């Protein structure tokens, strides 16, 4: 499972990277969001999967899946969400002000 997941995650990274390398801001944001999924799954996978029941006490389970990665991912998800929100708004403000969503036209070499 872990190996398979690793490959899946790698594919996510590849797809995300490809999107990031395009010029359109929206695609870039989508790319980051795919990579973020990859990252979260990676943390989870690296914590070892399916080693036991959910990390909730009080059920009959004796062994539990490693809870730390889950806690980490939770934090990471929230932070990514926050950053994405900001990035999204930033992009649309940038689009409104600069008048393009093409990052190649946001070089800024021309002096203002």
């Amino acid at each position, binding site marked *: 499972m872990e190996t398979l997941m690793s490959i899946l995650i790698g594919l996510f990274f590849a797809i995300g990277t490809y999107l990031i390398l395009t010029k359109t801001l929206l695609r870039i944001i989508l790319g980051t969001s795919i*990579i973020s999924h990859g990252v979260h799954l990676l943390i989870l996978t*690296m914590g070892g999967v399916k080693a036991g029941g959910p990390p909730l006490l009080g059920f009959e389970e004796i062994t539990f899946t490693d809870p730390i990665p889950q806690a980490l991912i939770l*934090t990471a998800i929230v932070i990514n969400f926050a950053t994405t929100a*900001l990035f999204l708004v930033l*992009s649309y403000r940038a689009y409104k002000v*600069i008048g393009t969503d093409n*990052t190649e036209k946001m070089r800024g070499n021309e002096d203002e």
Partner: protein
Amino acid sequence: MNNLLILPVVIPLVMGLLMVLFRKNITLQKIVSAASITATGAVAVLLMIQNDQDGIQTLQIGGWQAPFGITYAADMFSSLLLTTTSIVALSCLLFAFKTIGEERESYYFYPVFLFLITGVNGSFLTGDLFHLFVCFEVMLISSYVLLSLGGTRKQLRESVKYVLINLISSFLFLVGVAYIYAVVGTLNLADLSVKVAEAGQGGMLTAISLVFLIVFSLKAGLLLFFWLPGSYSAPPTAIAAVFAGLLTKVGMYAIFRLFTLVFYHEPQITHLLIGVLGAVTMVLGAIGAVAYGDIKKILTYNVIIGVGFIMAGLASMSIAGMTGSVFYLIHDMIIKALIFLIGGTIISLTGTSKLEDMSGLIRTHPYLGWMFFTAALALAGIPPLSGFLGKVFITQGTFEAEYYWLGGIGLLTSLLVLYSIMKIFMNAFWGETYLSEEMEKGSTKGIMVPIALLTGLAVLLGVGAEGISSYVNLAAEGLMNPELYIKAVFGE
């Protein structure tokens, strides 16, 4: 247990939040923000004294023993950086009082500024890899907000790049965390150090250390500095100065922490790579610094050079190199903020950042001019100013490690630094005076205080280096002896 450790994080955090609630009262915000940064500085000094007397201070947050909870640990290195951070932040804040403008003030400039400091302080203090990520994020998010605060074209344009690049680096950070957790199964830095030492830093662990190296390089601007010139020239001066003074330093701190505490077993791979990256950074930075006749560009490329040079000290992995790096790091924080403040002032006076369009300011602004001159010399490491000892010891370190090329590049770039910065001085301050004081676009009213404060410090740090030398020594020893840190974190 020492609850003092959390204060540098909590004071600006709480005060900043309270200031959000009192949005309209700007005077109050000014007072509170200055007071809280001063308080943070006081705590940091207190920590330094405690470090001096009782060694490394730790706080197990929530009372959970390491490695289970989050540990805050302040060794001398951290405490020194904390103190410097407060000074730099205070100066930039004082500068901002006069220059930042009412709109930005009423749109949460001061709170977000404090939040930035929260993140920076947290990063310096934490002893937990993942918490470092969180603190980074606090810092980064605040920097995104500060960078885009005002939403001018240039700011937005550069913010987009800055945010994306940092977003990627955050992802990569998490990737690194995932890998290291898989292999070692812990996040506490001290625990990592113990376990890495126990397992022997084999190929996999070294490889993971390189993962982190890339991540932090991105933040520190070590070779991956492409985002830096743009984003440091976009925001208002006070913000750019605080960025220049603090942001890359946090990344550097992380590299130092990680490669002295955890991954120090294979210096011929990791540290050599750091040295190579540092050398390339210095060279590219120096090339960039001499290339342009634009104040902002010259200054930002100088930031990059500083990064490479400090890393050279780490690459040497010797006590002299560490001492030098600590000295230089402190110096760099102060001096970078200083030259950005003065550079910004020049730009606001003349209304342009092009060197060819300015001339002869020294007649109307002699104090500013001489302070810039002092800063310029300090920046280039001319004795007896603040950069000198750092330069000497870093060079000594690299020579001791027999990386002569590295030390040589460091010295040569410092010449180019001097060349580039003197270009500003000679063009902006010398020459015929065209602008009379009435024709100037801005004024220096009230902003000389922070500039003078930092300049004084730059001189003091050089001439009175003895005053902090014992602290710096302690910091360098701490960096070279990871077991001290480990012992402190795990208690007796």
